[in-house]
C-alpha cells in the first residue's frame, strides 16, 4: 500500500472550516429566505395593484351611476309620497257625506200639508253616521197621521237612497237578493208573493237570505223617530178648510258608510 503524505493538511482543514462556518451558512439561508419572501411580496403587490385598478374602474362606474341613482331614489320617494297622499285624500273625498241628496230626499218627502221649520244635521266623527233633527208642522183632519206619513216616507226614501241594492254579479243571486230585500219590508201574504217558493234553486235562495239580512241590517241602521209630536190649538186654512195642526220633531240617524257595506260578499259558485 502506497503511503500518502498530506503536507497541506492544515490549510485544507482551515478551508473546510471556513466553508462550514455556521454564520456564513446562516447568512446564506437568511439571504435565500429573504429573496423568496421578497418575491412573494412582489407577487402580492402585483396582485394588489390589479385589484386597485379594478377598484378604480368600479369606483368610476359608480361615480357615473350614483347621481342618477340618488335622483331616482329621491324621485321614487317623492312619487310614493304623492301616491300615498293622493290615496288618503281620495279616501277623504270618497267618504264625505253629501248633503244635497239628503236635502232632495227631504224635499220629496214633505207633502203639501206639512212644513219643515228647522233642520239641524251633523256628520258624526269616526264614520259613526249622520244625525239630523227636523222640526216642522203638519196639518190635516188628523195632523198626527200627516206627520207619521212624512216620517214613513222619509224612512223609505233614506233606505232606498243609502242602502243600494246588491251589485249584480250573478243574475239568479241578484234576483234572489232583491226578492229577499223587498220581502223584509212587508209581511203576510204580500211577502209570500215577493218570495216565490224556489227552494230548489240554491243560488236564488242564497241571494234571498243575503237580501233579507241586508234589509234587516238597513232597518236597524236607519232610524227616523219622533222626539215630539203634539197637537196645536191653532187652526190653519188649507184650500178654504180649517185644519188642525201638530208640531213634530223628528230625529233621523243613519250611517251611509255602514249600510253601504251591509251587503254580503258575492256568492260563491255552487259546487258541481
Amino acid at each position, binding site marked *: 500500500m502506497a503511503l500518502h503524505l498530506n503536507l497541506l493538511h492544515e490549510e485544507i482543514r482551515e478551508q*473546510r472550516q471556513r466553508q462550514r*462556518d*455556521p*454564520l456564513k451558512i*446562516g*447568512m446564506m439561508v*437568511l439571504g435565500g*429566505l*429573504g429573496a423568496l*419572501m421578497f418575491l*412573494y*411580496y412582489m407577487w*402580492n403587490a402585483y*396582485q*394588489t395593484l390589479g*385589484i386597485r385598478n*379594478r*377598484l378604480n374602474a*368600479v*369606483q368610476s*362606474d*359608480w361615480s357615473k*351611476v350614483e347621481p*342618477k*341613482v340618488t335622483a*331616482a*331614489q329621491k*324621485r*321614487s320617494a317623492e*312619487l*310614493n*309620497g*304623492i*301616491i*300615498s*297622499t*293622493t*290615496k*288618503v*285624500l*281620495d279616501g*277623504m*273625498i270618497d267618504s*264625505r*257625506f*253629501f*248633503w*244635497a*241628496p239628503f*236635502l*232632495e230626499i227631504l*224635499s220629496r218627502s214633505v207633502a203639501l200639508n206639512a212644513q*219643515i*221649520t*228647522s*233642520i*239641524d*244635521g*251633523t*256628520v258624526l266623527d269616526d264614520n259613526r253616521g249622520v244625525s239630523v233633527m227636523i222640526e216642522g208642522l203638519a196639518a190635516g183632519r188628523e195632523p198626527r197621521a200627516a206627520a207619521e206619513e212624512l216620517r214613513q216616507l222619509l224612512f223609505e226614501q233614506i233606505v232606498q237612497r243609502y242602502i243600494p241594492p246588491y251589485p249584480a254579479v250573478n243574475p239568479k243571486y241578484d234576483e234572489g237578493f232583491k226578492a229577499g230585500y223587498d220581502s223584509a219590508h212587508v209581511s203576510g201574504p204580500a211577502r209570500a208573493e215577493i218570495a216565490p217558493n224556489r227552494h230548489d234553486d240554491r243560488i236564488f235562495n242564497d241571494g234571498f237570505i243575503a237580501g233579507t239580512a241586508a234589509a234587516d241590517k238597513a232597518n236597524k241602521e236607519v232610524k227616523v223617530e219622533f222626539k215630539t209630536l203634539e197637537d196645536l190649538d191653532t187652526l190653519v186654512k188649507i184650500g178654504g178648510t180649517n185644519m188642525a195642526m201638530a208640531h213634530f220633531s223628528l230625529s233621523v240617524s243613519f250611517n251611509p258608510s255602514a249600510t253601504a257595506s251591509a251587503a254580503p260578499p258575492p256568492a260563491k259558485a255552487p259546487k258541481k
Partner: protein
Amino acid sequence: MKNLIPNLSLSKDQIQKLALSSIGFVVLLYVYFSFFLGPLNSSRDSMQTSINGLQVKVAGSKNEMAKAANLEKQASAATTRYAALTNLSPEGAPIAWFPPRMKTFFSNQQIEKTTARLENSVPYKDAELSKWVRHNWIIDLPQTDFSTLGKAVAELENSEPLLSINHLNVHALTEDPQFQQVNLTVATAILKR
C-alpha cells in the same frame, strides 16, 4: 457520521454568531409580516370588500332606476290627480282667499250676503297629510230658499272635492217663512304654502 459530529462542534464565537443570526431572522420575519405583507394583505382585502360593495350597489342601482321608471309610469294618474288637488289651494293665507271664494261661489248661485269665517285650523294626524292642514269654517247664508240652497250645496260638494260639510243648520225666517237662514260648518283640506 462520526466524522461529521466533530465537525459540528461549534466554538463559543460561532454559537454567539448563530444566536445573533437567529435573532436577526426572527426580527426579519416580524418586520416582513407586520410592516410589509400584513398591510398589503389588509389593503387588498379592504379593496376587495369595497369592490364587492360597489358592484352590489351598481347592480342594485340598475334595479332602482328601472323601478323608478316603472313607478313614474304607474304614478302618472296619481301625479295628475295630486296636481289638480294642490291647485285647489292657491298661494297665500287661506283666510285671505277662502271667504271671498265662498262669497263669489254663493253669489253665482243667487245667494247673496254670504259670510265665511275661520273657526280653527288643525293639522292632520296622518303622516301622509303632513303638508296639509284642516281648516274648519263657518259659512252663514242669511237668506235663501230651500231649492236654491239644495242646488248650491250640490254644486259646492261637486266643485270642491276637498271640502266636506260637517254641520248644516237650516231654519225658517220668522218674518218671511218662505226664506231660510242657513249655517254651514265645513272642513277643508288645504296645502301648506
